[in-house]
């Protein structure tokens, strides 16, 4: 059964994933980064793409099942954690900053969604 879920923060996550992907492409092709041609940045770029798709679904499909909502929320937070750790070991502050931005978006969405649920419950109780 579908219901309306919060789209708050989704665009911030989309922006963060795009930043992560762009910086990965830059790192992959630029010798001065020390990461040229490395598998690590490819991994983060793929994670960024997956985060982009998940957050796009979050933004464009407000009416979604609770199962899909849970899947998107869990997937994105795991993506953020994994990419942040990768960014740390790649010694890339930009990737870590992008993931911090994504985390803010994720928190906005989760808190917003909980708040919406709370309002709906209040409506019912009224």
């Amino acid at each position: 059964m579908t219901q309306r879920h919060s789209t708050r923060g989704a665009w911030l996550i989309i922006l963060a994933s795009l930043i992560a992907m762009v910086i990965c492409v830059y790192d992959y092709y630029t010798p001065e980064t020390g990461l040229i041609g490395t598998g690590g940045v490819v991994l983060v770029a793929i994670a960024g793409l997956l985060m982009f798709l998940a957050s796009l679904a979050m933004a464009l499909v407000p009416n979604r099942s609770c199962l899909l909502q849970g899947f998107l929320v869990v997937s994105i937070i795991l993506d953020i954690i994994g990419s942040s750790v990768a960014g740390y070991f790649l010694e890339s502050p930009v990737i870590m900053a992008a993931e911090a931005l994504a985390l803010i978006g994720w928190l906005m969405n989760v808190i917003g969604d909980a708040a919406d649920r709370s309002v709906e419950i209040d409506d019912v109780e009224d």
Partner: protein
Amino acid sequence: MSKIKTYALGALGLAAAVAAVTFLPSITAIAQNGGVVASGDDQTWDAFGGNQQAQKYSTATQITPDNVKDLKRAWSVHTGDVSSGERSTTWGATPIFANNTVYVGTPWYRIVAVEPDTGKTKWTYATHGGEGPPENQGLKNRGVAYWAASAPQAGQPCQKMVYVGTMTGELHGVDADTGKPCAGFGKNGVVDVNAWAPKNSKWKIGLLQPPAVYKDTLILGWAGNDWVYKTENPGTVYGIDARTGAMKWTFNIIPPDMENQTGTANVWASISVDPETGLAFLPTSSPSPNYYGGDRLKEMPYATATVAVKAETGEVVWSRQLTHHDIWDVDINSAPTLVDIKKDGQTIPALIQATKQGFLFVFNRNTGEPVYPIEERPYPASDVPGEVAAKTQPYVPYPEPVIADHMPPVSKFADIVSFGECSRWKARIRDEGRYTPPSIRGSISWPATLGGVEWGGGALDPTTNTYVVNSNVVPQIYTLVPRADADKKYGDKLRAPDGYAAQQGSAYGFKLENFLNMWGMPCWAPPYGNLSSYDMNTGKLNWKKPFGVVQKWGFYMPDSWGSITIGAPAITKSGLIFIGASMDSRVRAVDMKTGNVLWKHIVDSPAVSQPAIYTYKGKQYVVFAVGGNGILTPRLSDQLVAFSLPN
């Protein structure tokens, strides 16, 4: 930071496990969607080792521990000499600065001359085909040599010359000002050294290391191929007239009556010279075949030794064998560094010979007598039929060796993630520490052929006699393969991708394996490399710290792990150590007093060379040849990069 990274690595492992269980299904679901003054007060770097004494020391003081953080890239050039994809380049050249020019040899055996302050190319010289056929040593150039006439003839060319060797055994001499071949040197500027070494020749000899220069004599060794045949070219060192290329003398390392039983024991590393006494110090390598000595049991005292010869005649003055009956390929792989040790109120003219075994042998350079005692210690016997390992080997307890007597313990992390592969492997091979003889069941080689100390050797501040040296902590597995088994498995192959080398003509083939688990992780506990500082007046270790950073798939591992290093440090009077060498593509400045890294900068690939330091027009430059090395990472480059302080 390092501790945080170690903890973070543990967390990463946990996160990876969680991700594997939780996240991967999600991915699947969504996916369905690297001496001679130039002019005025300029400080030169006119030899491979910085100077003839191989001290790798600069008196420059502009860059200091206080301002090194401001060091910026002054210029960067790409020589165009990088791997074509089919043949991997390994660029370990030291750029030299002389004649107001930076000269560097390239892996395709060219000379590139650039302006010292801009990097703009002055001229290039190509040897045309100097790289030789693929079965030779490879594209490894370690630089060029520079010579200047003591009484130059005005208006005449070639009063200053630059030399580069090739993988086809040719030594080329060109005019240092123009890059034109010197017609009076050999035949039109080329001496065919290979023609002097025809005995048991299977390959053309490789002149990857530039010759040492003493007055008007070039002292030249060569690189061979000592893993695939029992007999090879016997190691011979040549004294060559710097002007004409005529052979002045030879020094034979292999005794004549052994030449049909073995070969090599050549000098492939750099050579140092004492300009005051005219003695040249030769680091010699192990005889062929490297890992089975049953056919060469007779003593060969000049093999795996430091030998002092008169630079102008080749006459031996003294020699010291540093490994008896070498069956581990522990070539003496770097030029001894000359030092005047102040001890007990006396000044002792000495040299420091660092080795793959991690020992620092210190000898009186005029007599060969040890300055710090050497012990002959008993070591295990070989269990291989036909082999007789030496009963004792030289051991230097002091100065403290740069590596321990036994390999580090098995890495618990690497062992767990490989389901016990590391510990099982270790349990079934022979491991008795240093000098465990190669065996048929497999033996730990500790340290392995990578060292200990690699071919760069150490650097010395002659004002304080502080010696700095990088070292590796790497065990490998050596296995002898009985000939019948080798023939059955490998047929006529001289080498195979699994680490096999034929040692053809002997009773055993040989297999070298890296001690890595199924994921490619080292099976031994870190650190993998260190940087050490010694006070050579007392022999005391000042400090020893993990150096460099392992980088895998782009991920930087904790600083406490250190890195395998190839290349060497250079030091300045102002108290800085400059060094690349690490597996990550960074060059670093380290505080001489503390060993702390004060500055680092990313370059195109690992800088597996030693830097050059010079001043030009009042400005100090530090230059690195950045070439990479397939042993460390696949990332290769052809970058020559200089750093200086901003104006």
